[in-house]
């Protein structure tokens, strides 16, 4: 029995005593856990289900391959009816909704023809004539406000092995757009063009490709784009161009008129974020495979509605653990400043939940300044996220970190133990409805959602122990 290295946590003198014997000591920078979590951490750590549950959750999550299989209206895909609206984040009422979410809903109501002028929509939301439900409750995700209405077209992603599907709306581009809470005529005109031209063209192309035996391997594109400087949340440039590459032949032979086709190419190629709306449902498709595994402490969703930040955890079913959404720190467009920014909003933190976005910041040095950081910050951020994750992705890897896999499977217990909060890259919406985007930056979840989820996991563990045969 010989020992190469001793990992020490606690009394430094014991590490020094190891080194005195010419054996290296690797010191853990140990600190007490988040306040009030000690008892729950011990209960969950000694849950006989936990280790295996987490192993299964991680394997299920990492085993999913997401393919783009269709593009169709939300009414057809989700059975969404007129007057029903989906939104980003955990459940919320109109009364508590923030400016950008209200603005997005107003735009959608006008887009659906439910009101002539977006300004007429609020009373109908207040009265309950129009209803709200989270995207996540319908297998969907939406960036920023994440508003989905029946006439909006959506990408359909499928995991061939299980047949499970997830959905996401089509990306509108940057600036004054619905998802940032803008609702002027330019927003509505673009939405109508997306409904009438972009959606049908993409449907023909995707169906044509599928029928000829081809496919758009979204998971595979993610693998490549992560090696091309995209972190797939705030930078999707390589991914967007690879999508165009894959779809171009099918688009060219789709029968769509050349003028519309040119507009489609111009729109998709000119919107660096177009692929975000494929990255997000791919992440959700993968993470949904890890849901509902008793004992698992893995986070399967992080989402914000502009007011609340919520997480869902594998071992606690569909329960949301929520706290107040934080205002991101970063850079502002034009003369916007911190007073103009709305708290964190959007389902796009599903990318961080899956280990990309802010978790893969090290691979996207081109945008570190956009979110107000430096290249060393980006490397440190990715390394720090490994501290709170169960494992590494075998296929999504980062060249500059010696091709180390991205940190995968946020572990509630490790967040509570270390106090390290997930790092999220995000856009910033104006807090006044109708403003649009005001900046981009970095944000964290409110710390309290993790101890709350841990407490629930601990309660479930205690209940299992109480009912299990001795």
């Amino acid at each position: 029995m010989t020992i190469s290295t001793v990992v020490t946590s606690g009394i430094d003198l014991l590490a020094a005593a190891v080194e005195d014997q010419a054996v290296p000591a690797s010191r853990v920078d140990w600190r007490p856990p988040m306040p009030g979590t000690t008892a729950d951490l011990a209960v969950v750590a000694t849950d006989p289900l936990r280790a295996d549950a987490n192993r299964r959750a991680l394997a299920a999550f990492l085993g999913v391959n997401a393919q783009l299989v269709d593009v169709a209206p939300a009414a057809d895909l989700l059975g969404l009816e007129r007057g029903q609206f989906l939104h980003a984040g955990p459940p919320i009422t109109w009364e508590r909704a923030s400016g950008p979410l209200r603005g997005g809903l107003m735009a959608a109501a006008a887009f659906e023809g439910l009101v002539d002028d977006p300004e007429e929509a609020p009373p109908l939301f207040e009265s309950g004539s129009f209803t709200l439900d989270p995207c996540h409750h319908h297998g969907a995700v939406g960036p920023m406000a994440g508003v989905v209405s029946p006439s909006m077209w959506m990408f359909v992603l499928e995991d061939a092995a299980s047949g499970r599907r997830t959905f996401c709306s089509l990306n509108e581009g940057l600036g004054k757009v619905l998802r940032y809470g803008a609702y002027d005529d330019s927003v509505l005109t673009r939405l109508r063009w997306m409904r009438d031209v972009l959606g049908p063209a993409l449907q023909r192309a995707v169906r044509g490709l599928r029928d000829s035996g081809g496919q758009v391997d979204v998971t595979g594109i993610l693998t490549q784009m992560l090696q091309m400087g995209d972190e797939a949340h705030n930078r999707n440039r390589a991914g967007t161009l690879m999508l165009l590459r894959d779809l171009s032949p099918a688009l060219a032979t789709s029968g769509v008129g050349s003028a519309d086709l040119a507009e489609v190419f111009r729109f998709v190629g000119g919107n660096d974020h177009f692929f975000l709306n494929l990255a997000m449902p791919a992440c959700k498709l993968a993470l949904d495979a890890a849901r509902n595994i008793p004992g698992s402490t893995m986070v399967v969703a992080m989402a914000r509605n502009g007011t609340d930040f919520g997480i869902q955890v594998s071992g606690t079913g569909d329960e949301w653990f929520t706290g107040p959404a934080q205002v991101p720190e970063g850079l502002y467009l034009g003369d916007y400043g911190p007073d103009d920014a709305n708290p964190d909003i959007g389902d796009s933190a599903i990318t961080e939940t899956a280990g990309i976005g802010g978790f893969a910041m090290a691979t996207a040095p081109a945008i570190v300044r956009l979110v107000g950081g430096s290249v060393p910050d980006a490397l440190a951020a990715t390394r720090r996220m490994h501290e709170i994750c169960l494992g590494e992705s075998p296929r999504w890897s980062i060249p500059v970190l010696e091709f180390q896999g991205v940190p995968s499977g946020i572990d509630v217990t490790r967040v509570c133990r270390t106090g390290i909060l997930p790092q999220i890259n995000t856009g910033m919406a104006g807090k006044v409805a109708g403003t649009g985007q005001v900046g981009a930056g970095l944000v964290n979840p409110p710390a309290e959602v993790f101890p709350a989820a841990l407490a629930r996991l601990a309660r479930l563990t205690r209940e299992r122990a109480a009912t299990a045969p001795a």
Partner: protein
Amino acid sequence: MTHTHVDVRPGAYADSVTLLQVSRQVQQLPGVLAAQVAMATPLNLDVLAGMGLPVDREVSPNDLVVAVRLESADAVEETLAQVDQLLVQASRRPDTGTGGDIAPPRTTAAALRRAPDAIALVSVPGDLAVLEAMDAVEAGRDVMVFSDNMPLEQEVALKRAAAERGSLVMGPDCGTAVIGGLGLGFANVVEPGPVGIVAASGTGTQQLLALLDHAGVGVASALGVGGRDLSAAVGGLSTREALRRLDDDPAVELVVLLSKPPAPEVAAAITAYADSLDTPVTTALLGPGAPDITASAEAVLTRLGVSVPEWPVHGIAHPARHRPELDDQTGRWLRGLFVGGTLCDEAMLIASAALGPVRSNIPLTPDQALPASLTAAAHTFVDFGDDALTVGRAHPMIDPTLRLDHLARAAHDPETAVILLDVVLGHGAEPDPAAALAPAIQAVRQPVVVSLVGTAGDPQDLHRQARTLAAAGAEVHLSNAGATRRALELLGDRL
């Protein structure tokens, strides 16, 4: 006009040894009359209250308390700035030179990912130790849990998980291990040799290592399993794994199982398991009616065909009749002040056979428990390494102040007849325990007997320690049992 200032800092943390160093440095700052920088554990809050620095706020054990008494209020700001500086300096780690720009790991799990063959050594507070230890077990690694105060149900869960994966959990409350020559925790420097030890006791192991070393017998490995491993609840899970490891080691010719009396059903199972191994296993029980550790060491030597040496003694504690200045003393009690729990226990067993019941904070029977003052008009034995006296405080092998305080009190007590101490050497222990103890012993009027547990290779230099203590007037024994019998003899002289 003196001024007291008590500052509570939630979420700040440093380990107890670091805080001990910081406290000492603060005490030496100009204008500081008293100072304590400590985690707000109930024990430390008691200590602070005893210093006249009560914490009058709601606090949790994860809060850092900075408490100072100053000559005047003018120095508060300056002193607190110095405290901050000292805390920053104390927590600064030397740059290892490789990848210095990479932040250190924050959990044992993260550290083990970076060190594929490493084992883990956990000494974080006991209510949190299971988290770090479980990281190691889940990574399929071995772990030594130095921390005490781990709840029993957590130990059971941890060891069950380890048994499923073939990991070895040493501890909790494992003070000593030697693995292939590497000492972990409080461990003596030993030569490689034919003996393998599985032990439920840290200082018991150290006594055995010291005696075998003196007899010229080396040790391949000594694996601690924690004091509760052979209880019915834990069922000897670590003992089995440790026996298996030693049986696999071709260097081991004889396994010594140093154990507290096991639960009967566990004893049968472990005996059956030991009998199934290729390597012979001999059991040395600790407890009433069992041979003392010195006798067990002698049995091991005999079994190995090694002749039993004279156990060395340095100096001489003069019986009272040779010190006429003590004739007016009426003392009649033996005072045992120990840092080693098993050494204290062994001394009590030997003493109580001669003296009847003795009082202790780790009493042989519950009715002999000492009050919180740790004093009584009786023969008293205090284990300063007991869990209750180490919550948020460094072990007395590292921080001698609590025992030195009680040594002075015992010496001043006219009822004290003889004082019995242990001094334990090896990695992890104070660099020069005799230096602090010798002046204190010199000031004692009563005879002082010391059991000095260490090996020739220990960094403190066994022979220099023995000479220093003997020169201060103590009689120094390598055998704790021998020291105890000598103390009884001196007590008999006094009575």
